């Protein structure tokens, strides 16, 4: 069998406990276990992380960049979602 059969995995690393996993790159591997082993060697050679996620790239559903406007515009005109929209007299404290 040729290596063409090896799927692409996206690799996410948690730099330390308390922080989220963050995308660092991708690699090809025969299966998820090999992806984790190789991600260890490729992406954490200098103490970059305490935890690795390997996610088959084919399993990721992504939004379409050409629909960016229609997807995100609706949030742009809703200033009332932000705390600064509301007027509170300066004399009122702790709010």
């Amino acid at each position, binding site marked *: *069998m*040729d*290596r*063409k*059969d*090896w799927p*692409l995995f996206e690799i996410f690393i948690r730099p330390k406990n308390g922080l989220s996993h963050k995308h*660092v*790159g*991708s*690699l*090809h591997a*025969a*299966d998820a*276990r*090999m992806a984790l082993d190789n991600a260890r*060697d*490729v992406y954490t*050679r*200098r103490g970059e992380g305490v935890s690795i996620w390997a996610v088959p790239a084919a399993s990721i559903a*992504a939004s*379409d*960049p*050409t629909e960016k406007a229609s997807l995100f515009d609706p949030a742009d005109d809703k200033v009332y979602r932000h705390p600064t929209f509301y007027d509170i007299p300066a004399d009122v404290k702790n709010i």
Partner: protein
Amino acid sequence: MYTQGLDAKAEQGAQPSPRLVTEQEAALQGRFQERVDAEEKIEPRDWMPEGYRRTLVRQISQHAHSEIVGMLPEGNWITRAPTLRRKVALLAKVQDEGGHGLYLYSAAETLGVSRDELVGQLLSGKAKYSSIFNYPTPTWADIGAIGWLVDGAAIMNQVPLCRCSYGPYARAMVRICREESFHQRQGYELMLALAQGTPEQKRMAQDALNRWWWPSLMMFGPSDDQSAHSAQNMAWKIKRFSNDELRQRFVDATVPQAEFLGLTIPDPELRFNAGTGHYEFGAIDWTEFNEILKGNGPCNRERIEARRKVWDDGAWVREAATAHAAKRKQRALKKAG
């Protein structure tokens, strides 16, 4: 390392002639250029001009190949490093180069080209890689000279690439640059040890500098008036500085380092111009550079043969890994069933 302007003007004839663009395409291109001008990053699924994609695939894959081929001249010395300290450093450096190749192949793949296609291009001899790796490493001092000069030139070239307009390439370069500085420092430290050693060791260091100086200057690619893609790549913000600008920076940074080592740069025309604050240097022998790009360098054949051998010898490992993964999957299914 190592990206290099490998495409000379003569090759432009091979490019397809520009066709008429539709109004819609022109609008898309206009918007694309506005985003680039505004320093917005372009991400894999964003619209991009075909030329931008093609240029990036070529540059990133050449860069990746250079990392992988670059493991060979140094790997040559791992088993013969003089101390354990030098050996672990060299081993870690060569391992890093393999990692850099992988980051870059991954970045290239986001542009819709497959890994096997890229590796195939390298093994068939169709793809280019940095001219510098076609020189031999006959002495231990070459390992110092490579770290100091070759990685030094690479850093000069690569730091601006961290701000490249294409997101995945820029992110890969950030990782690479962070790791590259150890490469240069271990090389300089090695040169320093030799330069301060016995007369014979110092001679060895000087000999390595003599052989690596000019090839290192060539790493920045053809001079600006001969460089095929410079203007467009600057407009696309793939490239931030011209080949000649970067080469000058390298010379300015490196000459004082050579002086500290007590070694002589092999260029009788080298002199400091107090007026400009820059070093002036002699003419580069581009015939040598062009011969190497054509495949006629001292080690071109050896390098590609070594990569082919690795690929062929590693076939059983790839097959075994695939078989093992299939077996593991079967077992998991049986357990669940």
